Structure formats: structure tokens, C-alpha cells
């Protein structure tokens, strides 16, 4: 029993890092993703191609590889000083998730009918006004289901941080296997992930319900 409590505390500490990665990634990737989606829909062709190529590279390579390149790359290739480990994790996660989010935003924005823009114009609204007051809320409603999917994936992707020795929950659990031959802490981590993604699922259900009055 005592062991169970000490393992729980230790894993909870690791899960704190997991949650930190999760929350900070969302905080930065939400706005950055929107910015990238504007780039990928830009009428200015070179910008559009640049952004699309960037998204292709980020979505087309494993996040694990991106972590290794962002952390070790500067020192190996340019002999620069390295980023702190946690910062490198954040850079990799924010860039990676911004690209996925940008495609979700793009899907949402492009699904809004032209009539909505035209209605705004008839009322004499400016372009930014139309986007933020008419379009954005409808987009938000449409992207909640695909976003929640991606966000729940993010919860579990955080476990990749251990590749560059950021000690999150799986790292802590694996050290019990290495040191004491205790394998149950690793399985036990599943409870933490399940609990948290359960809370998220309820939250997204609530948000979807709240948005029901909006029939786009």
C-alpha cells in the first residue's frame, strides 16, 4: 500500500510535466495554427506554396524525429548552444500541432458559404469584422469534433518528450522497470491518461451542446 502511494505520487509528478506540455502546446498552437491556415489560403501564391510545403514537411515526418532535430540539431550541425530540453519539446510540439490545427481551421473556414460573407458586405461590415463577428463563431462550432480528436491525440503524444530526456509520466514509470523490476507502474499510467482524456471528452461534449443554438 505504501508502495502504491509513493508510485502514485511519483507518477503524478511526471503527469504534471505531461499536463504542462499539453497546456502550453494548446496555448501557442491555437493562434499559430490560425495564422498558418491564413497563409495556406493566401491569394499570394509564393506565400501559399511556402506555407503548404512547410505543413507538408511537418505533417510528413515523425514528431519523434522533429524532437531530435530541434534539440540536438543546433549543436550537431552548427555548434550552437542548445535550447533547454523542455523548451525544445515545446518548440517541436507547438510547430507540429499548429500545422495539424491549421488544416482543421482551413477545413472549417472553407466550409462557410459565400453567402455569409456577402451578407456581411451588404451590412457594410469591413473584412476583419466579417471574419471575427460572422465567420469565426460558425467555424468554431464546425471544428470542435475534429479539434477534440487532435487534442486527445496530443495528450498521448506528450509521451514522446522522454526521447530527449524530459521526464514525463512514462519515463518515471519505466524507471521502475529498470530499477526494481516493477512493471505495474507502467500499466498504471494508463489510468492517468484515461482519466484526463475522460475529462476532456466530457468538456468537448459540453462545448458542442453549448454551441447547438448556432445552426450553421
Amino acid at each position, binding site marked *: 500500500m505504501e508502495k502504491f502511494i509513493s508510485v502514485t505520487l511519483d507518477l503524478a509528478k511526471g503527469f504534471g510535466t505531461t499536463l504542462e506540455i499539453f497546456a502550453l502546446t494548446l496555448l501557442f498552437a491555437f493562434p499559430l495554427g490560425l495564422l498558418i491556415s491564413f497563409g495556406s489560403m493566401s491569394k499570394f501564391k509564393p506565400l501559399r506554396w511556402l506555407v503548404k510545403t512547410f505543413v507538408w514537411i511537418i505533417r510528413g515526418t515523425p514528431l519523434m524525429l522533429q524532437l531530435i532535430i530541434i534539440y540536438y540539431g543546433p549543436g550537431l550541425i552548427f555548434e550552437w548552444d542548445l535550447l533547454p530540453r523542455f523548451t525544445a519539446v515545446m518548440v517541436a510540439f507547438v510547430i507540429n500541432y499548429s500545422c495539424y490545427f491549421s488544416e482543421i481551421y482551413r477545413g472549417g473556414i472553407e466550409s462557410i458559404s459565400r453567402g455569409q460573407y456577402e451578407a456581411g458586405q451588404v451590412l457594410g461590415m469591413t473584412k476583419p469584422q466579417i471574419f471575427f463577428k460572422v465567420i469565426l463563431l460558425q467555424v468554431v462550432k464546425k471544428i470542435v469534433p475534429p479539434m477534440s480528436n487532435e487534442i486527445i491525440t496530443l495528450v498521448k503524444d506528450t509521451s514522446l518528450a522522454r526521447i530527449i*530526456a524530459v521526464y514525463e509520466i512514462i519515463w518515471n514509470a519505466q524507471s521502475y522497470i529498470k*530499477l526494481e523490476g516493477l512493471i505495474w507502474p507502467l500499466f498504471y499510467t494508463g489510468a492517468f491518461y484515461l482519466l484526463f482524456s475522460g475529462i476532456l471528452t466530457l468538456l468537448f461534449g459540453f462545448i458542442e451542446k453549448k454551441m447547438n443554438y448556432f445552426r450553421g
Partner: protein
Amino acid sequence: MKKVLSFALGALMTLAMVGCGGNSSSNSSSASDSKYITDKGTLIVGITDYAPMDFKDDNGNWTGFDAEFAEAVGKKMGVKVEFVEINWDNKFLELNSKSIDCIWNGMTITTEVTENTSCSKAYVKNEQVVVMKSDKLADYTDAESMKGLKFSAESGSAGEAAANDAGFNVTAVTAQSDALMEVASGSADACVIDGTMAKAMTGEGTSYADLAVGITLTSEEYGVGFRKGSDMAEKLNGYIDELKNDGTLQDLAEKYELTLAD
């Protein structure tokens, strides 16, 4: 495969050289590595949680044979020693990107190590031993008699290599501790792991009380890896001699039940 790899490495090195010319906020590779370390005042030691070489005491501080050994060397060099727990698969990346200054963690000197690092001379000897249920030990006294058994060993470890060389039927698992667990659970008849670890983790008073150490397959030696071309390996060899002569290393070896290299 090899061609592709060497091409990729070549491309990377070209990039690295281009990088060197332009900017260099840290030192350039021509300056001596020991000066780089004494200038910044800390020796960053890459380790893993690996008793009895490096492990945390009750207060959460790193201790163990290698940890105390590194502290002693740090004192002689006049630098602080900082331990960083790394992902062992990335040890050479950690070293070359300068996120650590050396790999000092009961590392067996293999050709892989000597090709990727400037390695110190050997300071501790270790053996690859067979571990099995203690009641079966008497029936198996040489490698020949074990050919029919099911073995487990850590993937890529010296133990796996030794078991393969002996012609055993081996299942690779991810860690040495997993190999022990395979034997304890009966999924394997025996495993091949480090002698130091085998002695520390089997027998009375351990989690594997019904396992025991059997015959020795091969012996190996531990060294400290520095960046390729570093002058630190040579320096450390000097410190190893000093610490051997004043008895420090012998005391540590007795404390952690290890055998010093000759």
C-alpha cells in the same frame, strides 16, 4: 543501406563545416575540450539510473561508483560535476551536440564506443553471466549443457552478443531487468546479463531471491566516453592512475562490490 547512411552522414558533416565557418557561439572544435570544460566550470556527466554505477540516494542525490568517481575527478580538475539523466539510445547525439561532456555510466568499451567517442582506458571489469533459478544451477555447469534452454537478454547488449556467440537460443527484450523478469516468471529458462547487476539483484534479500548467478560467458571493461578527438580521455587516464594509487578507487570498488580493471 550503408551507402545511403554514409551519404547522409557526409551531407550532415558538410552542413556542419558550413556552420563552423559562419558562427560559433560556443567554442570551435579546434580549441581543446578540457579548456572548454574548465572555462565553463562544470563537467556535465551523462548517466542513466543504473545501480550500482549511478543511482539516487534517499535524498534524491546521485550516488554510486561512477557518481563518486566523477565527483573525485571533478575535485581534481577544479570543476563542478553535474549529472544529467539521458536517454541511453541517444548517448552519442547528447555528446556530440555538447548537451553533455562525457558518458560515464558503466559503459562497456566496444568498437561502437571507440568509433564514436574518445574513450578513456578501462577502470572496472565486468562479466557477462548466466542467471537462472537457483535449484537448476547444479545441472548446468558449462555452456554446452545449456544449448537446449530458452534464454533472454537485453536487445543490443553485450549479454545478447555473448549469448549469441555461445550458440544459445535467445529472445531479445528491452532491458536487462526485463531479462531477469523473464526468468523469474518462467517465460525463459535463463538470461545473460552484467555480472555486477546479476550479483546485486539476485539471491537472498533481493526481489529475485530464487535466482542465482551461474557460469561466466565473457568479460568486458568499462570506460568513460568523451567527444571524438577530445584531450579529456588522456587527462582522465592520468586521474585514474592517481586515484588508483591513493586507494580511492579500491575503496569505492569494495563499497559497491566491483572489480577494478588492471
